């Protein structure tokens, strides 16, 4: 079902903003973070105005309401990704912290010197640095699935790497630069066949595609609320129940314990074992509202809309002389278009587009090794979400012509 984007946009107050007088906003930076519908803002505001309290240990009405709302949010997040049980969802600050949690807790308990971890060349820094840190500390070995010239993973090399029986394979479901949607289900199956545990960086997939952790058979899967219409300050780690049971705690403190004595403690059961201190309670409430919104729209519709926009964007950008788009063709691609403009620095492109109210990002997008691979330092990136329109793509293309004229 095609989205009624005009109607839907009216729920996003920021989208009617003028960047400066007379210059309306064209927001093409949803891969960095998304805008929020009124229902998400209202849910958090209402929480603070009506039910705000600390959770879990309180018996008064507010504490009970807050606890129920927080745990309901966990249930909604779990259902959204088809997790078997709510207790398999840990709330973190963001996708990055979720990966670090796995690296510190599961990684330090399970990986020893010489063990192999397989990553890809298209990973976000958040799925590189935690493993580099573990590698430096423990002598864990890292190897990488290369990215081909057309922006796909080189699956032949993946096969070869699997013969070295990695302990962990960690890869992104969708690249935040190339837009590549990786053939996850197959890759997970192959990793499991050699006994590897699989972590999926779903920061760009859960917001944009229907994701079913059971169908994918992911062992760990991470994402961030702020990239899916939700608030900043909260993300999620999904993991298989047996893994969570066996993992040692990560952060210590209130709520993650059953009992504490001066010198010893007994950890709580998952998910609480991994949530130390007062969590992001209002943010969980906002996260739940974002999921309600996305469910009402339908993830199939979101994905279809983005496919249409990105196909149109690729078509329009191809016609501009000097534009080079990175990444695969539309069929393998989510709503992200990273490009360079010959002879003009991406920072200048982005800054001049901003004069026309067009918000795109310029830089390495936290994927410096990927840019190195393509022999460039930076790209300009336009990214799309359910609220973007073809007219906005047209504005982008006009803007690029303006940039070329200025530097011509």
């Amino acid at each position, binding site marked *: 079902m095609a989205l009624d984007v005009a109607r839907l946009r009216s729920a996003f107050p920021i989208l009617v903003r003028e960047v400066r007088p007379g210059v309306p906003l064209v927001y093409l930076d949803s891969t960095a973070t998304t805008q929020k519908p009124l229902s998400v803002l209202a849910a958090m505001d209402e929480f603070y105005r009506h039910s705000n309290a600390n959770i*879990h*240990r*309180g*018996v008064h*009405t507010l*504490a*009970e309401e807050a*606890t*129920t709302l927080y*745990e309901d949010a966990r249930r909604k997040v779990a259902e959204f990704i088809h997790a078997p049980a709510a207790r398999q969802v840990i709330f973190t600050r963001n996708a990055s912290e979720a990966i670090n949690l796995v690296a510190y807790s599961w990684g330090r308990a399970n990986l020893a010197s010489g063990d192999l971890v397989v990553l890809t060349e298209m990973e976000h820094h958040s799925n590189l640095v935690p493993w580099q840190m573990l590698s430096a500390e423990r002598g864990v070995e890292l190897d990488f699935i290369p990215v081909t010239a057309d922006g796909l993973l080189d699956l032949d090399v993946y096969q070869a790497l699997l013969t070295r029986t990695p302990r962990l394979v960690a890869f992104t479901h969708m690249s935040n630069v190339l837009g590549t949607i990786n053939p996850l289900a197959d890759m997970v199956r192959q990793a499991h066949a050699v006994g590897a545990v699989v972590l999926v960086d779903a920061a760009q997939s859960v917001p944009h595609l229907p994701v079913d952790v059971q169908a994918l058979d992911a062992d760990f899967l991470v994402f961030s609320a702020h990239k899916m219409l939700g608030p900043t300050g909260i993300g999620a780690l999904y993991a298989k129940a047996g893994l969570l049971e066996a993992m040692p705690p990560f952060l210590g403190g209130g709520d993650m314990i*059953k*009992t504490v004595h001066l010198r010893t403690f*007994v950890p709580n*059961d998952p998910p609480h074992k991994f949530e130390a201190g007062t969590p992001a309670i209002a943010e969980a409430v906002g996260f739940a509202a974002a999921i309600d919104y996305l469910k009402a729209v339908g993830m199939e519709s979101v994905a279809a809309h983005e496919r249409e926009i990105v196909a149109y964007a690729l078509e329009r950008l191809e016609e501009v002389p000097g534009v080079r788009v990175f990444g695969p063709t539309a069929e393998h691609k989510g709503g992200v278009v990273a490009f360079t403009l010959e002879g003009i620095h991406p920072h200048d492109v982005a800054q001049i587009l901003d004069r026309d109210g067009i918000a795109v990002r310029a830089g390495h997008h936290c994927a410096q090794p990927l840019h190195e691979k393509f022999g460039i330092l930076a790209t300009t990136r336009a990214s799309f979400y359910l609220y973007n329109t073809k007219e906005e793509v047209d504005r982008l293309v006009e803007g690029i012509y303006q940039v070329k004229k200025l530097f011509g």
Partner: protein
Amino acid sequence: MEDLYREIIIDRYKNPQHRGHLDPHDIQFEDDNPLCGDHIEVTLRTDGDGRITEAAFDGKGCAISQASADLLMESVVGKSLEQVKSLGRQDLLDLLGIELGPVRLKCALLSLKVLKAGVYGLGESSDALVE
């Protein structure tokens, strides 16, 4: 909420009918709620057919946990062990006749958890028993 401290709860807390420790017994189990330190022990006697003939609890804790335990013991006398295995949280709440928030629910369910862990012969009790 108005009903939370229904007379029966205060009454059972002050004057429990099934408080004690059966010796000898056929089944015994104990556990506590780490959140608040409530502690419950359950002892049962059964007949040859696996039917409960006597039930007692001992322990300490809040009125909800202790009254729940007392009412639960009363309700299981005459039941078969199989019937006990199928008891759920709603059965207990029906006995209490009140609604409970998530924190106090744990107090109320402690005795049921302990009872079921004992009947199943488990090494430890778990929240899954009362979900």
